[in-house]
């Protein structure tokens, strides 16, 4: 999708990331040894249902985990270990080298400051520039996130803007110091579908222009298909499948990914066609099965699946991985014909 801006060198590398919570006396693991990397100019989507650990992972990348959470493993940003950095060191990185946008833009905006003042502050927090220069840069940022009439919008308060406009302002703030990595945590879940399309197209365009890497956290497989180069599918705190977005939709390997793709209402399907269900529900954190976490809901699970969590070996190319003992034995999922093009 964006081969022209990729350099091949990963800007963000995550290795064996573990996140756990202290609850009363017990330690409860939420993310169990996650690994992935993102190259400059590419979008990696982390997909999964609620509670799979995808948002926690995003927070861990920026050192924003809640106080009772603990992360271990390795997170390297542009070759530098950043996991566990605290205070001033982490603050300097946030906003300059790695930035984040959230599901609800209002949480990232100060309701009593104009949007212009907030972006100016974001710039001057990290760089010694004059107020006039910061203002000029703010105006050009607002224009870059396609906010019409930036001069007028500069002096507006967040509550005067629509949800989509607010998310654009948050993106402008995130871009203020040209970060190498942008983490977008469900950036359009709170927005209408027409607005969602525009925001994600905007992020795509900015990524192409600046060569930043994007980590897109989402539950929406449709978004993944359109906006991601590579995908990491998470289930119950573990990666179950990784690969290129195109390959994942054409031939999902892990039974969970297959079920997830098939459970979506598919456009152009026959009237009253049944959806493929995934029986049961995600095991609660306190009651993880000993083996593969998906085994209790998996139609293909056999005895070995229930013993130890399966590893995540490469299959095919190095970037394609699947954590399933049985994926080779499964027949190709039946793909009923779909209408292409609109």
């Amino acid at each position: 999708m964006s081969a022209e801006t990729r350099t091949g060198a990963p800007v963000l590398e995550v290795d064996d990331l573990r996140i756990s919570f202290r609850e009363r006396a017990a330690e409860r693991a939420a993310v169990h040894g996650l690994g992935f990397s993102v190259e400059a100019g590419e979008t990696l989507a982390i997909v999964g249902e609620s509670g799979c650990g995808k948002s926690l992972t995003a927070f861990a990348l920026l050192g924003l985990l809640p106080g009772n959470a603990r992360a271990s493993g390795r997170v390297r940003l542009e070759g530098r270990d950043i996991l566990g950095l605290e205070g001033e060191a982490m603050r300097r990185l946030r906003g300059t080298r790695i930035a984040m946008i959230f599901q609800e833009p209002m949480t990232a905006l100060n309701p009593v400051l104009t949007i212009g003042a907030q972006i100016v502050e974001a710039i001057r927090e990290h760089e010694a520039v004059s107020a006039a220069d910061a203002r000029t840069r703010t105006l050009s940022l607002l224009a870059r996130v396609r906010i019409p009439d930036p001069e007028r919008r500069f002096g507006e308060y967040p509550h005067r803007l629509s949800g989509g406009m607010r998310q654009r302002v948050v993106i402008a703030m995130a871009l203020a110091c040209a970060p190498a990595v942008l983490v977008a945590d469900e950036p359009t879940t709170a927005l209408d579908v027409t607005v969602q399309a525009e925001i994600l197209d905007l992020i795509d365009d900015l990524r192409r222009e600046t060569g930043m890497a994007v980590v897109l956290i989402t539950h929406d497989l449709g978004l993944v298909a359109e906006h991601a180069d590579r995908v990491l599918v998470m289930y119950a705190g573990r990666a179950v499948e990784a690969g290129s977005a195109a390959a994942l939709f054409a031939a999902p390997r892990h039974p969970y990914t297959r079920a997830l793709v098939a459970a979506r209402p598919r456009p152009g399907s026959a009237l009253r066609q049944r959806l493929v269900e995934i029986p049961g529900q995600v095991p609660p954190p306190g009651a993880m099965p000993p083996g593969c976490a998906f085994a209790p809901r998996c139609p293909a699970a056999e005895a070995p699946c229930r013993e130890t969590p399966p590893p995540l070996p490469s299959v095919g190319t190095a970037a394609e991985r699947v954590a399933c003992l049985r994926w080779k034995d499964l027949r190709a999922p039946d793909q009923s014909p779909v209408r292409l093009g609109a």
Partner: protein
Amino acid sequence: MTGTLTISAARPRPAGLVARLIRRPSAVVGLALLGLVAGAGLAAPVLYPGDPLDMIGAPLQWPGMDPAFPLGTDMLGRDIAAGITHGARISLMIGAVATLVALVIGVGIGAGAGYYGGRVEAALMRLTELFQTIPPFLFTLAIVAVLQPSIPTIVLAIGLTGWPGLARLVRAEVLRLRDGELVQASIVIGASDARIIGLHILPNVLAPVVVSASILVANAILTESSLAFLGLGDPNVVSWGGMVGAGREVIRTDWFVAAAPGLAIVAAVLALNLLGDGLNDALDLKRALR
């Protein structure tokens, strides 16, 4: 049909109210203190069968001087311990009944205003505000003075001035519930207004009402004591406030006469406030489920 699901994420049922209460230190201390006060009141006729207003000993005996009068006697030779135990009955009774009066008025007006809205609400809330503009103690004082001090008039006066805050609280809670999906879902299944209010709204506003009721009881005890202190108590019964008032004259020399009933008031009011605090936490269903 879809396969039967098991409730794998089942969380434990919330513990009973009592179990949740005794996990909170403030509630435990409050309950213990209240138990002490109520126990004293219950035991009064057994421990001191006579009229506590009878003069039965030498006046102004300090505590410990005569084992028959562990808390001493006042300037008329009345047993202070007997006064305090009998006073506990009166104080708790007045507190409870006055609060009941306030509850009936306050919950009725608040629920009506919150549920029906519009003109009903406007009228009821103006009435509430009218009551709130009058300083409650002066209002109570005026009612008692006009109607002659007696236990029924004191109860009525305290109840009549105690409800406006409760009405506002109930109205706000009912408003929140009325516009919520809980009530909409009940309207859709055809439930009548009375059924919705009685089965869904009132039980769900019960928690804050119970909490404020315990504070109301404490306030009623304070108000009754204040009235008695000013000489507007029922002259035929012993009252903590009246005892403090009487002891005022000898406070420089024999301070225990005022201090003992004063401590009783502090204990009862503190107990109810602590209990209210504990109830507030324990009745918070959402927190209990977490």
